[in-house]
């Protein structure tokens, strides 16, 4: 699945055995527990939030990612040796990175490397894209990241969609993108951008890219469905890429005129707090945004991110 080079037959069989072994193992545990693990998300926790800010004109984005994680206690705090880690970037649109429609590839690359350094057995990048996946992966730089780091880039396909019960307030059975549930650790790595219906596309909204099926139906009660998905997928950690943000014409953008340079990364184990902090970058009050407000109401976290353990690093 590493897209940069052709595998030998032996390699592919080995990989296959590993993947299918993990998948079947994970799925059997997942099925048996009926995903009751997600219930853990509903109890409010005293989390942390770290802001990484690039202040110098030519700072190194990857270094900023590393520093941000260090301030949160290092990647080893979240990823254990031998874990299968899945990173969920937002690479839905076949757009070049500077248009801020997708997660910054440098951030993605740094996070993959940190996971690998922390001893992850396998790092996968998975997103159920809107545009053709090949073009999305090529243009957003996700393909390049996979090539440089050796992380698996998973191509969305129907055999990787499985109907599962989301146990949501609004959503029941839905097609779920399997790699995102069959993992030891999930890192949510969205880009911060404008959206015409949900106001902003941040961390929790990113989970729409983790399901299949009739996704267009989700727009008819967008805020509640976002919260339902966020409680289902419940990532280990969320890092919002706000190096460049798209301030209008979201979610697809298409012009550098829609992009603002914010040079910021937001890392938190509280998905609502991370979204709330990112909302301020767009001059929006967190509680004015439906899904952030609902996220707190349903116990996913708090939009009063000042209450969390705050930390700021700059470069």
């Amino acid at each position: 699945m590493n897209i940069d080079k052709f595998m030998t037959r032996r390699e592919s069989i080995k990989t296959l055995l590993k993947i299918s072994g993990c998948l079947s193992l994970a799925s059997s545990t997942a099925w048996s527990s009926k995903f009751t693990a997600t219930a853990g998300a509903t109890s409010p926790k005293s989390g942390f939030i770290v802001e990484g800010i690039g202040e110098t004109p030519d700072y190194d984005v990857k270094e900023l990612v590393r520093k941000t994680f260090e301030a949160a206690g290092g990647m080893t705090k979240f990823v254990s040796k031998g874990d299968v880690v899945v990173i969920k970037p937002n690479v839905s649109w076949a757009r070049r990175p500077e248009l801020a429609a997708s997660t910054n590839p440098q951030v993605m690359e740094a996070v993959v490397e940190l996971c690998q350094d922390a001893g992850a057995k396998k790092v996968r990048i998975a997103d159920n894209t809107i545009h053709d996946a090949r073009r999305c992966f090529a243009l957003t730089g996700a393909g390049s990241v996979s090539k440089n780091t050796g992380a698996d880039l998973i191509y969305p396909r129907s055999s990787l969609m499985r109907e599962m019960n989301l146990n949501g307030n609004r959503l029941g059975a839905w097609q779920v993108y399997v790699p995102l549930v069959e993992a030891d650790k999930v890192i949510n790595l969205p880009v911060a951008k404008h959206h015409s219906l949900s106001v902003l596309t941040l961390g929790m909204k990113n989970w729409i890219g983790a399901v299949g099926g009739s996704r267009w139906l989700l727009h008819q009660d967008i805020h509640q469905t976002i919260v339902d998905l966020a409680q289902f997928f419940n990532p280990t950690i969320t890092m919002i890429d706000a190096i460049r943000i798209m301030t209008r014409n979201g979610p697809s953008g298409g012009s550098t005129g829609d992009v603002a340079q914010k040079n910021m990364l937001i890392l938190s184990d509280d998905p609502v707090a991370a979204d709330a902090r990112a909302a301020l970058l767009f001059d929006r009050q967190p509680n004015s945004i439906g899904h952030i407000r609902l996220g707190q109401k349903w116990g996913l976290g708090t939009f009063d991110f000042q209450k969390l353990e705050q930390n700021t690093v700059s470069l």
Partner: protein
Amino acid sequence: MKVRHLVWLRRITQAISLCFFLYLLIVSRLPQDIYQDYSVAFSTDQDLRLNQPVTFFFQLDPLVSISSLLSGNTFVRGFLWAAGVVVLTLVLGRVFCGFLCPLGTIHHAISWFRPTLKGNRLVQANRKTPAQRIKYFLLIFLLVGALLGLNMTGLLDPIALLFRSVALAVVPGLGAGLLSLFKALADSDIHILRLLTYGGELVAAPIFGYTYHVFQSAWFIGLLFLVILFLNRVRPRFWCRTLCPLGALLGIFSRISVLKLEKYPQKCTECNLCIKHCQGAASPKPGQDWETSECHICLNCFNVCPEDAVAFKFTWAFKPNRQPDIGKRALLGGFLAGVSIPFLGRLDGRVDKFSDPRLIRPPGSLPEENFLELCQRCGLCMKACPTNVINPTVGEAGMAGFWTPRLIMTLGYCEFTCTLCGSVCPTGAIQEITAKEKIEKPLKIGSAYVDRGRCLPWSGNAPCIVCQEHCPTSPKAIYLRNDVVTAPDGKELKVQLPFVDLKRCIGCGICENKCPVRGLPAIRTIAAGETRSLKNQIILF
């Protein structure tokens, strides 16, 4: 070198040529290992392109070059290859048919492997018949038609026909079967079966892709292909002998070939082995006149003759071969049909009066008249399109445009920064453009309009912004206005109503493709407003 070796050389060349054709066909798609280095400063000038020479066989095909030259006054890219084939034919006869043509190889293999006819019946079937004049009729018909502006050669050109049949019917058909199998296996809870699925997908995906590929009228393309293959049971290489216009063209060029079949009637024992093995029904037997224009130079007669009564020899003294048996009827009939068809093709008014609203051509397409002069209907753009939006027309372009490409937005959409179709078009009917040109001009292929009766917010049924969300232009061509509508239960519903800004809309159709109202979406795309047509403009810019 013995003759036997030459025959094996032919078989190996045929196999390599067919495999190369199929390889190029399979790689006529975006590969999964394609990526761009993001550390290099990105610019819209960087377009995704295929690395392999996917149009090679079309460049090799003299019929593509000649018909494009006659109708569109254009030298197609790589036409020198075709010129090379013509020169080769002038020297060696129809070696293209015997050694290189992938469709000929398929017919040859089918006729050779477990032939239906045996013994004397095979000898009878391999005798030359007047029906072999049909191919000259078709050639003259197609070339005269092309000269008068309607290029339909692609419908019968062997390379275009084979590409279309395999790419639009055979490969998607097999792919659909495999995908259904994988899906059934993946849905089962048996681990070993799932394991098989993931393994199978890794192998199958580079060839068949990860999704279903469907094409309008593909069943008919496939059926026609099966019929053409089945005809080999009537007579070996029926297509090559009787119907192939390229074979006819090369047959005419072979008139002065210096590789000639020498016959020694005194040695002949009337065993008829040469006729039995003849691929082209070219009268190889001593005592009959060798039909140069029918001969595929397969060397079978030379190889099988136990008495060495026939032999291929180079004869450099200038002596034209037997002239092709075209026949006056084929000549006159072909000419008349060729003269009438371009005008008959215009009688439905699609070119001169109005164009069908559903006829949305791929981005970069020439104006309709020029498009019909060059399009080979080969299906390469349809195979290469990453979203499966490009489909063969049935009636949308009229009779003249049968099986030319059009975009069906319910099957796919034209991706904003993708310009792959133009880069693979063998004749330039779809011009190669860059994403930068496509965006900045902007290049419109049509326009979208909202069907308010179906639209969820307009009809008061639900809030929805899916079309606006997906609109790729900046600023968006679909914009929203806040409003309050009456829901079916009589309550007020706050919604955002979608409107289309025709100045910005490029007709890409992603709104139609993603609209929650399936089948006949609430926002649809029509060809009106397309850049390529002056007649089809809606508003004054």
